[in-house]
């Protein structure tokens, strides 16, 4: 009887790799039913009263079926999510995943397995950890004296969670997955770890990669620095080197500038550092789209308000009358040697000639003395070009001025550039 049962389980596990989703789903459900029943009526006799049984091997089989090595099983995994609501299942799945990662990765010797990692990620990223001990009430298997059981301890859950993530992140990840992990890191991983500082290695490596990944790692680092007292050497230098033209164009612009605002909000920062940031931001603003400009100009104004010592950048009454070169050195990695304080914000002056009227007006503020109160930029962070467009289209004008030069044709204007380069063929 037991042999038959074991055979059946084996076949079902094989069927989880079947081609049709329907078969997979059915076998998954059957296996989970087995798990439930086996927990209730254990195969092996309980050794002493009060010990707890859970069919770990069986669950391990299910988990292995869920994360195949070379195909995308996200559909099946999303079906499995309903079982993850049970606290005990979740606990043992986390343990099983940790084990599985250890085994598989050892075998493959650091070779990245995109599908496998993708599957694991889609399995473990939606894990919804409980916040309090008393939330741990939903169990698939009813045990008599639950209180003493390890599974009902939040601490144990957290530990399993932490182990699982650490073992997952220990190995090299594909770039897309890297970004996904970093995006959810700060609000669905870090808060549920016993020792969030264990993430420091992962975050430091990510921060060092550069580009969008660095921007994303910033968020996790910030939480560690802010809440867990992490010392990070040369943090501002690295932050400074993160500023490149792409910051105004990437998707995570709002998130990055929100954090940058936080980092630069301290009034204890030296003036040279803030000046270097201001100068670099405005230099990069020369390549930015209007929606980013609308955000960064008030941002720079806020920096001036927080650090009045930097106002020399816009107001240098007794400076040299004529400079042949901008003293600021863009290529210098070290903010203290960039000579930003000797420079002026000619970039923003150039932006006063921007084609978009709002930007030109915002940049023109620098000509006047700044008011005391900081601008609220939180609303501007998420601004998109299409919003700008809609805003402009909705503006109604009483009069529509017209061109008075009589047209002669499509390219018939005076000195038409098109006429020189395009023909109407």
């Amino acid at each position, binding site marked *: 009887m037991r042999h038959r049962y074991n055979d059946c389980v084996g076949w079902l596990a094989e069927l989880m790799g079947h081609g049709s989703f329907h078969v997979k789903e059915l076998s998954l459900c059957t296996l989970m039913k087995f798990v439930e029943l086996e927990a209730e009526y254990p195969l092996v006799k309980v050794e002493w009263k009060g010990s707890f049984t859970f069919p770990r091997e069986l669950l391990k089989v299910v988990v292995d079926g869920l994360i195949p090595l070379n195909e995308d099983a996200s559909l099946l995994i999303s079906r499995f999510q309903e079982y993850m609501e049970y606290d005990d299942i979740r606990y043992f799945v986390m343990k099983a995943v940790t084990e599985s990662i250890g085994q598989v990765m050892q075998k493959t010797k650091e070779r990245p397995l995109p599908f496998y990692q993708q599957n694991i990620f889609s399995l473990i990223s939606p894990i919804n950890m409980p916040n309090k001990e008393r939330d741990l009430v939903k169990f698939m298997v009813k045990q008599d004296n639950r209180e003493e059981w390890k599974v009902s301890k939040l601490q144990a859950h957290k530990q399993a969670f932490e182990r699982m993530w650490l073992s997952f992140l220990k190995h090299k990840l594909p770039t897309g997955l890297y970004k996904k992990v970093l995006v959810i890191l700060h609000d669905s991983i870090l808060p549920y770890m016993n020792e969030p500082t264990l993430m420091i290695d992962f975050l430091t490596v990510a921060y060092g990669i550069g580009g969008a990944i660095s921007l994303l790692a910033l968020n996790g680092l910030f939480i560690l620095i802010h809440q867990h007292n992490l010392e990070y050497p040369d943090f501002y230098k690295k932050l400074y080197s993160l500023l490149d033209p792409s910051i105004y164009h990437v998707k995570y612009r709002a998130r990055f500038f929100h954090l940058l605002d936080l980092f630069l909000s301290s009034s204890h920062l030296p003036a040279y550092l803030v000046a270097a940031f201001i100068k670099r931001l405005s230099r990069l603003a020369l390549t930015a789209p209007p929606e980013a400009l609308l955000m960064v100009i008030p941002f720079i104004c806020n920096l001036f308000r927080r650090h009045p010592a930097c106002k020399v950048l816009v107001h240098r009454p007794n400076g040299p009358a004529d400079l042949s070169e901008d003293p600021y050195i863009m290529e210098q990695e070290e903010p203290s040697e960039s000579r930003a304080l000797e420079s002026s914000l000619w970039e923003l002056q150039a932006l006063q000639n921007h084609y978009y009227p709002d930007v030109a007006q915002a940049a023109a503020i620098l000509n006047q*003395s700044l008011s005391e109160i900081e601008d609220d930029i939180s609303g501007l962070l998420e601004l998109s070009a299409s919003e700008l467009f809609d805003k402009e*289209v909705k503006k109604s004008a*009483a009069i529509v001025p017209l061109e008075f030069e009589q047209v002669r044709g499509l390219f018939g204007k005076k000195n038409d550039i098109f006429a020189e380069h395009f023909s109407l*063929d």
Partner: protein
Amino acid sequence: MGLPKASAPSRGKGSAESAMAVVRSNPFEVKVNRQKFDILGRKTKNDVGLPGVSRSKAIKKRTQTLLKEYKEKEKTNVFKDKRFGEYNTKISPEEKMIRRFTLERQQNYGKKNIYNLNEDEELTHYGQSLAEIEKINDIVDSDSDTEERGTLSAELTAAHFGGGGGLLRKKASSGQEDEEEKPKSRKELIEELIAKSKQEKQVRQSQRESALELTEKLDNDWKEIQTLMARKTPKSERKDKEVEKPKPDEYDMIVRELGFEMKAKPSERMKTEEELAKEEQARLQKLEADRLRRMRGIDEQETKKKPSHVSADDLADGFILDKDDRRLLSYKDGKINIENEEEEEDKEQEEEEGEEEEEEGEEEEGGKEDNENDQSEEESAAEDEEDVAADNHSDLESDLESEEEAAGNKEEKKDETTGDESQNMEGLDPKMEAAKAELPYTFAVPESYETFKSLLAGRTIEQQLIILERIQKCNHPSLAVGNKTKLEKLFGFLLDYIGELANLDLPDLKAIDKLILPLYNLCQMFPEAAGGSMKFVLRDAAHDMEEAIEVKGRATFPGLDTLIYLKITSLLFPTSDFWHPVVTPAFIYMSQLLTKCRITTLQDVIKGLFICCLFLEYISLSRRFVPELINFLVGILHISLPKKQAQGYTVVHPFTPMGKNLELLLVCDKKDLESWQKQNLPLSIVNRLKEASRTEVNHIRLSCLALCFDLIKRCAVLYESLPSFHEIMHPVKILLTQHVPEWYHGALKELENKAKHYTPLVCEKKKPVPLKQYTPKIVKVLEFGRKQGGNKKEQERKRLIHKHKREFKGAVREIRKDNQFLARMQLSEIMERDSARKRKVKELLSSLATQEGEWKAMRRKKMKN
């Protein structure tokens, strides 16, 4: 002189009310806050204080709350009264009872026996149970069985309720004799009523008819008399003519002519050539000044205030002529032509009209007075016509003859008007008419795009142009009221049509080129509508792109039609304005195109370069800074380079430093390079790239690059004056000097020379901060008690700070007083305890003493004994 200090009130007074009265009358209890100055109109709240009363109040409150808390401290059990509203003083006790009752009922509701369906609630009316009343009713019914009762009630109901009562009664009482009679009489009554009302109606109608007849007769009489009298108002005159003598006689005509001649005003003298040139120059100068003002974006408020001033800028609007002008034109034939020549742009339209008027003038001589009159009386023409028609209809019943006449008149008129127009056409361009004899002369404005298309279908472009012209002329807004909206629609149709032409597999660009002119004219006529439809087109395009980004995550360049629309925008509207309702959205849209659209093919490159050209054209006058343009040009240069070159520059979004579409513009073949001749890029490439040989493709690439270099040159010229010109051009310079291969350099020398020019950097100056003066600052006090200065935000902040300060102070004071009170209580407790202890000790001692005394006395007694 000091004020009488209020003495401390005696503690533990009884009810507050009586105490207050006592206290108020007692001058020692009152503290007067003396004011230094009496200010008129200021209300003071705290001029008189009662320190004793307020103190006792505070103490009372503390004993009720704080002391209670203190005494219950460290005692776990608390008695809670959960009765509804027990401590709520706002609810009167009665209401409290009612609420409690309802709550109780609500609690019990639904818990009853399930078989009790209806009986838990007893319905009442005026406090009496309805069930009771029903019982009584039954008794009454049984009583009413007798005949007497029945008749009495019938009378009563009839008296009180009229006919309805009978009906009701019929239901209520059953098996009565008079039942048969009742409905009969009722029927009769109703019939009678109907007859009566009919009769009345008839009478009224006949009265009205007779009144109408009378008025008609009076009208006719009056008209007869009026013809005898002198003609005063042209309107009545005309009516009269239509009714009485539709064909005017010679005398009338002479009279009318004389009348008009009297009204003719002295006209301006003819202008000489120089004067005309000067005027034209002045006009252009004014327009240019206007444009500059808009470009700087200053005094927009001003323009808003006086729209009339701005309207001077579009002289083109003068299409809609004033009454006076028209009259003048219609009678001064020679002058019209000359003026038309003078006013250059303005207008065949005006000319047209002039001629129309002319011809009408001729007709006048011919004797068609009515018609002419209508036309010359401006826009009301149509309305008048309708008036006439209405008049005729009103006469319809009275005399058929005149009706017929009027109808005939109308038809005649119609024929004449159409004839007029056709004549006009012929007069305008007889050669063309002769050539295109098959085209109809009048066109109605198409109501839908389909009809518009069918109108133009199968015609050559010249014919299409003529059709458009005729549509405009036949439906000039001054001719009829609805024409304006119709023609406004025409602009939208034309735009759609152009878009369709551009989207053809082989775009008909020549036709588009020709169609621009009518588009421009329409735009000049209806700037608002044109702006609206242009915005609509742009919005659609932008939304399409947004959707594409949302769905696919990336966008592609739009079709040729959108590019053409953007180009047309620059032709119709001034692109140098600081803000313009159409141009500014177009700017943003183009910026999105340059930053968001992927570049995967050569066509994308051409489209992108087209947009770059557009940008440059848009800003050619205003010299505004467009970061996207430079980025894009750098990107174009970047994709013309072989992979893996050392970089000293960065490319932004649509371009990537590494990727698959990298060498899109790379030309490796030296032979192609040599054989290449500069040629214009045909726009049709955008829609369809012909299967071309490698050499041809390479030539296209080279043309693109040439265009790119030219654009860079132009940018360099435009942005020369920007303070951070070198920073802006930095990546371009690096690319050109280091990466671009030698054989491009010939074309670049010029640019590099220009780029070397370095503008000296100037620091920004600020207004000097004025010294602080000791002369008093005089501020108008608009509202008493309100802080002045600062904007709204700042004021709000100040107010909050002030409020916070006050609240903080108050809270600190309260806490201090609480502590004092508690300390006092504790002290009194301790004192009490001490005194109790003392007393007890005393008692003990005294008892001991007595004991001792007694004992001693006993001993003494024993000793004695």
